[in-house]
């Protein structure tokens, strides 16, 4: 043998790499269906249900349109991160996960790519909703824009974990078709479509324990001035841990399956 053979190596970071992250994001962005539910629908909801309240104020003088805009940003972000995490369901159904086991990619690097893709989508959803709001004349102090946006975005990590959990639970190509209605119901209980106060008392009590409640409260708190309540923080942390733990367990079962 006269050929010089390059010593064989494993990839750095288990195969995680930025070019593939960008490819993943591009994949999602050219899916019209996903874009519609993540970017267009929340914006249209704002135009339909937010704008008619223009000029009205909350008890503390903050604009009602801001309240609705932030709620819909949370909704957009949660749909975005759920579908980002839920991509594993599609990829397992199509056998791509198995194909990846014939490459050096480590499962943890795969999941990291999915979470980062989901969070990028979530950020995009928040930004689009905020831009629509700003263009339509929503006026809030700078710190409210920033803190509410960050809370809506970071809080949507709960749903990236939720999407992964469902993705590892059910390898289905149409996972978002049955997750969509579930997310809508959860958003309802999280007070994203109507303020929780208009719901019956018993519903309000139940709502506090549902996974959208915490992120909704936290995202709106800079505007309403209620501050971050312990209940809201606990809600976000516990649901993130619950879905994250569930996803991790199923993920381990999946990667060990032989």
């Amino acid at each position, binding site marked *: 043998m006269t050929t010089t053979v390059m010593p064989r190596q494993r*990839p750095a970071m288990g195969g995680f*790499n930025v070019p593939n992250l960008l*490819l993943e994001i591009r994949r999602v962005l050219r899916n019209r269906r996903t874009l519609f539910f993540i970017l267009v629908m929340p914006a249209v909801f704002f135009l339909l249900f937010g704008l008619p309240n223009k000029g009205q104020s909350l008890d503390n003088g903050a604009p009602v349109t801001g309240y609705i805009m932030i709620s819909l940003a949370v909704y957009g972000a949660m749909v975005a991160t759920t579908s980002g995490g839920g991509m594993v369901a599609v990829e397992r159904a199509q056998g791509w996960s198995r194909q990846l086991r014939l490459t050096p990619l480590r499962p943890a690097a795969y999941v990291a790519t999915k979470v980062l893709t989901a969070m990028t989508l979530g950020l995009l959803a928040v930004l689009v909703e905020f831009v629509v709001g700003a263009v339509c004349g929503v006026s809030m102090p700078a710190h409210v824009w920033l803190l509410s946006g960050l809370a809506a975005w970071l809080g949507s990590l709960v749903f990236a974990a939720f999407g992964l959990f469902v993705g590892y639970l059910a390898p289905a190509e149409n996972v978002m078709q049955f997750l969509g209605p579930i997310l809508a119901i959860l958003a309802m209980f999280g007070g994203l479509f109507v303020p929780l106060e208009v719901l019956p008392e018993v519903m309000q009590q139940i709502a506090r324990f549902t996974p959208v409640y915490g992120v909704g409260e936290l995202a709106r708190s800079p505007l309403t001035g209620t501050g971050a309540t312990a209940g809201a923080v606990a809600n976000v942390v516990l649901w993130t841990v619950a879905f994250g733990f569930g996803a991790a367990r199923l993920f381990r079962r999946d990667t060990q399956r032989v």
Partner: protein
Amino acid sequence: MPTTTPAVELTGLTKRYGAVTAVDGLSLRIEAGEVVAFLGPNGAGKTTTLDMLLGLARPSTGSVRVYGDTPTDAVALGRIAAVMQSGGLLKDMTVAETVRMTANLYPHARPVAEVLDRAGITDIAGRRVAKCSGGQQQRLRFAMALLPDPDLMVLDEPTTGMDVEGRRDFWTAIRRDARAGRTVLFATHYLEEADAYADRIVLIRQGRIVADGTTAEVKNLAAGRLVRATLPGADQVSLAGLPGVESVEVRGDTVLVQAADSDEVARYLLNHTSARDLEITSRNLEDAFLALTTGTAADELQGSTR
């Protein structure tokens, strides 16, 4: 790495699913550079064996070594790559994106343009996977498997479901690629494929190897050969007494001898009789395959594997 390390070493490999034994104490050694066909009927245990070779399934007992490594390490190092039978492609991606995404997982992948060219799919690089035919998807899987420039290429029934033309194109791509020194192991139930593209055939039935040798050897094991010559007044008794002769038939001036050792018969006919127009033909591989993979003949032949 010392050249004595075999490309594949399976030792006492067994895989049980509950009460079903899919692979039953299978041992196999493949040297670097061999092109081996893994031939057997559906359900013989071919795919299960390949899954264990690739680290996709864990053996119940026995061990797998790929160039001395575990399958997982061999995959991580890009030493082994595989073309699976179906699935494993994302429909919404283009051919080039799929290859690029896979290439990004290897520290020293071959260039994307190069593997597309070698697999013969440069012209459909921009096509969505969903719009590719089965044959095109299979060549895409082949392009992906070329990326790490593997020492061992495993193909699991790579041409299943392809039409004749697709099959020919696929094998043309494989042959064009045949880099000196690359070991190839392919599973197939197409006899012609094993016959045409392998140096060695490993015949498997019910999770066991029932025959292992060159194409010619495997054919001989089951079928022997037919020696035909023109020999007026042939002495049937002395012909039937030759070693390995199964039957002797005389039709006019023509004598037909069915024998496991056709060389011996031919030598006798030419040296000791006035036979002329001698012809030796083998029964086709299909017959050998059927004889070995069904019935009891296969069990008797197990001792004669190499």
